[in-house]
């Protein structure tokens, strides 16, 4: 296995761990959704790039890149739908003053 792909995968894992810590630590839905979007955008990107590099040129690499493109196109839509539903149903965002 290439040293470069190991570096990529470890960096991706770091961002995934940070996102999980954020999901547990942060105070309300809106700020937790930021943590989930951090996972999607950078953690998944680095991990999948590392795995694609490990696979080498070919159909498998192309398929992994297609999964990555799908994640990048679809995940903002899901996050936006959830946050919009939370906002429209009358949830108030957490503020620093009233804590």
């Amino acid at each position: 296995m290439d040293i470069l792909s190991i570096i990529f995968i470890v960096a991706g894992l770091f961002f995934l761990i940070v996102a999980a810590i954020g999901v547990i630590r942060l105070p309300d839905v809106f700020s937790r959704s930021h943590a989930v979007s951090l996972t999607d955008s950078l953690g998944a990107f680095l991990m999948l790039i590392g795995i694609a590099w490990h696979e080498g040129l070919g159909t498998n690499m192309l398929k992994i890149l297609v999964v990555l493109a799908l994640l990048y196109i679809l995940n903002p839509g899901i996050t936006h739908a959830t946050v919009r539903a939370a906002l429209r149903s009358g949830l108030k965002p957490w503020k620093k003053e009233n804590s």
Partner: protein
Amino acid sequence: MATRTRPISSEFLFLKAMALFVVWVLLSASFAWIHLGLGFICSFAVAWINSGHSPFVPKFRLWLRILLYLPWLFYKIVQSSLQLTKLILHPALPIAPQLISVETKLRHHAAVVLLGNSITLTPGTITAEVDRNKLIIHAMDKTLAEDITSKQIESKIADIFKDEEPDL
């Protein structure tokens, strides 16, 4: 058969069918004639059933400009990811979430979609509500909110769509 409210654009039908066909080939990964023919028929059938939804057919030069815009967007993503990582790992959790409402000057459906998607993709800022060209954005921090209010992303997207006809 249901009646259609809008005439079918043959160019759009062709592009949609080709996109579906490319996905078919990638998923099946076999080049036997029977599989290719089945995929061709299926993709045209699906595209025809779903045709008449979008009146906007992106031109080639627009795709090229969007492709050139992506590396800059990725640079922004990395920058704000590091900022958000610092916020989350800080022991005192110094976050200051706020809702900001922004009015854009973009006069194009696709441009507003691209702007909302870019804002949501950048960690730390999420588009919570879109109404024509007013956006409500939830931002995590003051510096992350300044990225939105300084309208960097919007000016880039206005640059991409400067030759298109406004339809909003």
